[in-house]
């Protein structure tokens, strides 16, 4: 039995769904960030799988840029989390429903 592109795409879909479910269910902002990373990785896997299938380097280039943007996003996001949790220790995503202090 051969591993076709469909297998990778299905794995990517399942991984993306797990990430989305975690984002909806968990309330710790840091764990929610990790779920975003899961979803980004699922999309990366899809890009590389389809790139390999079509013999296109563009898939790998796209993943490269996704990695860079993900790193930037994590840096800014974690700085925000640090700033919020310093003033309001133990805050969950539900406590941040309003935009004041």
């Amino acid at each position: 039995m051969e591993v076709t592109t469909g297998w990778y795409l299905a794995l990517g879909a399942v991984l993306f769904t797990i990430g989305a479910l975690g984002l909806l269910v968990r309330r710790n902002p840091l764990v929610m960030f990790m779920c975003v990373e899961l979803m980004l990785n699922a999309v990366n896997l899809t890009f590389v799988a389809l790139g390999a299938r079509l013999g296109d380097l563009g898939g790998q280039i796209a993943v490269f840029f996704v990695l860079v943007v993900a790193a930037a996003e994590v840096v800014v996001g974690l700085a925000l989390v640090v700033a919020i949790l310093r003033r309001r220790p133990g805050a969950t995503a539900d406590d941040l429903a309003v935009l004041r202090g």
Partner: protein
Amino acid sequence: MELAVFIISAVIVLVGAVGVIASRNPVHSALFLVQTLFGIAVLFVLLEAPFLAAIQVIVYAGAIVILFLFVLMLLGVDRAEDWNVEPIGGQRPLAVVAAASLLGILLSVMLAATDAVTGQPAANEAIDPEMSNVRQLGRSLFSTHVVAFELTAVLLTIAVVGAVVFARKVKGELEPIPELVPLQDEIAMTRAAAADPDEEVTH
């Protein structure tokens, strides 16, 4: 052989992903995330993208997860979450339903798409099996995608400056934080106000 590697790494990836969302302790979540990222790296090798596999391990598992762990330890938020509290009623069943429908849509689209692709090889940036992966990626990044590549440098600089601005200690006294009404109470108050229009509710 390829099948065995795929199945093993797929299991590693999925177990790690479930571990991320199912661990009560955020530190365990971060460690499960490392497991998932390693599994993805193995799949990249299987898909003949060794450079991406390397930066997946170095950047994701090596830098991003360590950053997560640093923040967890720095803030001391590494205690287990209480799962019995459900602030929005029916949130979890709804989330499961939403995720299940998302999975159905994604699977149907993706499995249809594998049959629908033309199967024609890429016209402008074909993968050349003669040239090494790193060399080819480097050529493409510094010729075709050079503008985007330079823009990522700007993006990273902005991200670093933004992080420093956000995370620095504010000088002087902070004004006290107004005590937040818990969501449940707020909803109850709104309902009470709706039921009894004579009473004014001030926020």
